[in-house]
């Protein structure tokens, strides 16, 4: 609060005039610093409509330091002249009959506030000599407000328990809040955006009646990751360049023996209506432990387990978990990412069913326009890439992969003939990066995450 005395003086001045007055004039006439008057105006404005004040600016001329010196002691020229001793006067002195110090006179005029008496040309000349400067002054034009009064009541900042108890709040005036400012950030924790998206996908699968698979086994044998899926042992995905192999524990040591034999046979000799790949299938390749390259390894285990049931029951499974690829890393690819997978096993499922269920699934993500492209995948036939129309990019973009598991995968497991299994998969990172507008995957996943991004990330509603 500005000095109360000054505030009251100012109010009395405003009361006396009809139109209004300029804060600069008030300062001059009261002989106080203009800033003090500005402070008083601001504190009055904060009280509501006691006064109203419009900011205005005016220009005036002021003497510079050198200008002040000249105004006081005369111009340099005049001072030189006057400092010449009387006795030894050189010739030059004779030329000065009467010394009129025009510069000083002009500066004195300005100092008295009568700059308007000088011509523009004269002022500019003095400005060039750095004796005068033009100053812009901001001031307020003060008029009475709708609640004008010369007495001021102190405003309360906050409601207190005492005011509520005594009822004094009824008489008090409260300082208005600044609604432009931001509030205080709550002191809270935050969930990671990728995990928020995972929760939503999990929710969607649960809404659709899918049961979650146990995917908590990052280390898998090549047998379950590749061989059981009818992926031949020379397949490029099984290269050192694409897959992380383990040196410890290097090998898996336990397989369902009769099933393993059927897998060997379908690869090397064919059977179950298939020609097979006709190569020398080696148990040593199947035993090699790896970091799973897809969660489909778990789907294979689950389908094998299902096939061991006395009577087949239809199932719908899903999982969302980490998979690992020994690939080249870039802004959108890491060595580990999350795979989302859905699997349905039942008698007589068709390609139409797969497309139908994909429509329902993607609808829940807010994606309605889908189309399907034939593709190749060693363990599904037919295989379809799923494309959705991206309204922003105005083109079709790939959003997932799908297919029907090959009979060479299902029949050796012991699933009844006539049971078909449809499946689809997509990555969790890609939709999350699109959803949250993240271009570099390292800002999202891993220790280089930007925590501010985590703090600021909104809730995840995939369908809006």
């Amino acid at each position, binding site marked *: 609060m500005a000095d109360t005395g000054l505030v009251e003086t100012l109010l009395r001045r405003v009361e006396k005039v009809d139109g209004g007055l300029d804060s600069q004039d008030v300062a001059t006439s009261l002989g106080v610093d203009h800033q003090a008057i500005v402070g008083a105006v601001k504190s009055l404005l904060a009280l509501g409509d006691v006064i109203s004040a419009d900011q205005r600016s005016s220009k005036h001329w002021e003497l510079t330091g050198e200008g002040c010196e000249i105004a006081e002691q005369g111009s340099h020229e005049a001072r030189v002249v006057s400092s010449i001793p009387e006795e030894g006067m050189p010739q030059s002195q004779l030329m000065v009959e009467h010394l009129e110090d025009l510069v000083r006179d002009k500066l004195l005029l300005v100092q008295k506030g009568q700059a308007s008496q000088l011509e523009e040309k004269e002022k500019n000349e003095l400005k060039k000599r750095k004796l005068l400067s033009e100053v812009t002054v901001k001031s307020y034009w003060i008029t009475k407000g709708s609640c004008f009064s010369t007495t001021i009541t102190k405003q309360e900042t906050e409601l207190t328990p005492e005011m509520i108890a005594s009822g004094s709040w009824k008489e008090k005036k409260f300082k208005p809040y600044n609604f432009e400012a931001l509030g205080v950030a709550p*002191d*809270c*924790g*935050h*969930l990671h955006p990728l*995990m928020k998206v995972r*929760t939503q996908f999990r929710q969607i*699968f*649960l809404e659709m*009646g899918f*049961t*979650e698979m*146990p995917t*908590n*086994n*990052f*280390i898998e*044998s090549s047998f379950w990751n590749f061989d059981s899926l009818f992926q031949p042992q*020379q397949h*490029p995905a099984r290269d050192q360049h694409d897959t*992380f*192999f*383990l*040196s*410890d*524990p290097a090998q*898996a*040591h*336990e*397989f369902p023996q009769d099933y393993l034999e059927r897998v060997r046979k379908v690869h090397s000799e*064919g059977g179950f209506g*298939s*020609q097979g790949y*006709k190569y020398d299938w080696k148990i040593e390749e199947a035993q090699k*432990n790896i*970091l799973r390259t897809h969660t489909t390894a778990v789907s294979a285990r689950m389908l094998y387990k299902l096939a061991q049931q006395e009577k087949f029951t*239809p199932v*719908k499974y899903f999982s969302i978990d*980490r998979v690992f690829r*020994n690939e080249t890393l870039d802004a959108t690819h890491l*060595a*580990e990412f999350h795979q989302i997978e859905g699997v349905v096993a039942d008698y007589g*499922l068709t*390609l139409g*069913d797969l497309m*139908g*269920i994909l429509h329902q699934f993607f609808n829940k993500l807010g994606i309605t326009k889908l*189309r399907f*492209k*034939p593709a*190749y995948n060693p363990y599904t036939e*037919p295989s379809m890439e799923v494309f959705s129309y991206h309204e922003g990019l105005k083109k079709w973009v790939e959003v997932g992969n799908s297919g029907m598991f090959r*009979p060479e995968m299902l029949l050796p497991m012991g699933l009844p003939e006539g049971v078909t299994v449809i499946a689809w998969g997509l990555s969790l990172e890609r939709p999350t990066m699109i959803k949250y507008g993240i271009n570099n995957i390292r800002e999202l996943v*891993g*220790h280089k*995450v*930007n*925590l501010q991004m*985590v*703090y600021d990330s909104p809730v995840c509603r995939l369908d809006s």
Partner: protein
Amino acid sequence: MPTVSVKRDLLFHALGRTYTDEEFDELCFEFGLELDEITSEKDIISREQGDTKAEGASDVILYKIDVPANRYDLLCLEGLVRGLQVFKQKMEAPRYRRVSPASSEPQRLVITEETTAVRPHAVAAVLRNITFTQERYDSFIELQEKLHQNVCRKRTLVAIGTHDLDTISGPFTYTAKPPGDIRFKPLNQAKEYTAQELMSLYKTDSHLRHYLHIIEDEAVYPVIYDSNGIVLSMPPIINGDHSKISLNTKNVFIECTATDLTKAKIVLDMMVTMFCEYCEEPFTVEEAEVVYPDGRTCQYPVLYPLTITLHESTEHIAQLLTKMCLRSEVMSDGEQIEVEIPPTRSDVIHACDIMEDAAMAYGFNNIPRTTPRTYTIANQLPLNKLSELLRQDLAAAGFTEALTFALCSQEDIADKLLKNISETRACRISNPKTAEFQVARTTLLSGLLKTVAANRKMPLPLRLFEISDVVLKDESKDVGARNNRRLCAVYYNKSPGFEVIHGLMDRVMQLLEIKPGQGNGYHIQAADDSTFFPGRCAEIFACGKSIGRLGVLHPDVINRFELTMPCSALDIDIEHFL
């Protein structure tokens, strides 16, 4: 997915019409291809080596087309055009025929016993009276390279050699000899080298050095001679210069040596079926006879169509299949379709492959969408359900969720935490490209500390948590390892905040309905752990079992993670609470 690059105008000429880029893209989509890029040689060079280098390069428009990995028959212009023309019903699928030479014995390739040790299989065939043009020749060479990279698995499974038959004379011998005993002038070299010299010569060859390892350490190297002792090739490395083909070559002898006979047959079939349309008698291939060490003989190429019977009945399906180069006929019983699989379609090995082609010919997007009636009740995995519930409440308790990598360096889980790697039960990766992927993590703590280090500019305190899996060796599992679900949290501030992390642990126990106390409750007791500051670490017991630790981290741990403030941490195994 292999990419085939074809000249657009050449392609359109062969297809008998032009397409806009959009139209062609659409056709590719239907056929399961992807028009990946529209470019030119000039564009490619200027992008890779700068504009000045591109000066004068061809600006003929190239289509780069992604082809499914199992469709070796679409890896060259000839195959692409044939596939698309049949699909658009502009031509009938050709029938490939193996023929005997008109006036002489077939070419013979004799395999000797010595090859067994290094590369036991070989197949061969002849393209008789072929007419090359520059484009055809380029495509012929390009297809060999594409096959080498794909189905041949970088020449490990199969290597192809093509020769001007008129420069050599059969019978040919496929044998294996010590490298010092092999001496010939290799392709595009001026003088003769021994095999040993060749191996060192090619050590620096940007292309060939990738194949040396296939035979480098063998006692004998494979080699093919003609009847005059001229070297045709030293597979899988290089051909001889003597028999190299040119634009003027009329008769081509093709040999494929292999470690996998099935793949060798497929590769030979691909080479001959793709280019026999340029023979005087199109779509015929002259046979060659392969003589095995035991005296058996075999005629190649195989080229026999495979016949698969579909238990479907409609005439319509048969028509659709014909569109996909699969000649089909409804059988007399009217309930089955007999499908002839041409040698070009080695990808077809089961009736389901044929049904996919039928679906493609019909158009995937024309199939009515249906909803399966499969009725199931959803279940959550109990471990994931618990993790989800705890995550929500940990965030509500003021901690922020981190998401760190499951793979890390050995240093991260051992040295930096002042632990010995042998006590971590860590699983090791044999082929990491960098130190970041040496082991699977055995603790979540290092990931959280690295997250703190990367966010030192953020206002203090930092409170982080993660609920995720670590991996531990476990002999009782089939693969010898298992995941373990952990809850880890850190508090990083100007003071250690043991009470904060302790309070979080109390809160977690409260959420899990475990009361303080011995026996069925939980309690903590002082413990020694090298990761923690001495006297500032406690072991947590719940329901009588040790479930984890909490404490103030050792200053050396703080330093090793490049941190500057005190930090307290909590690490528990939540699988006890299922």
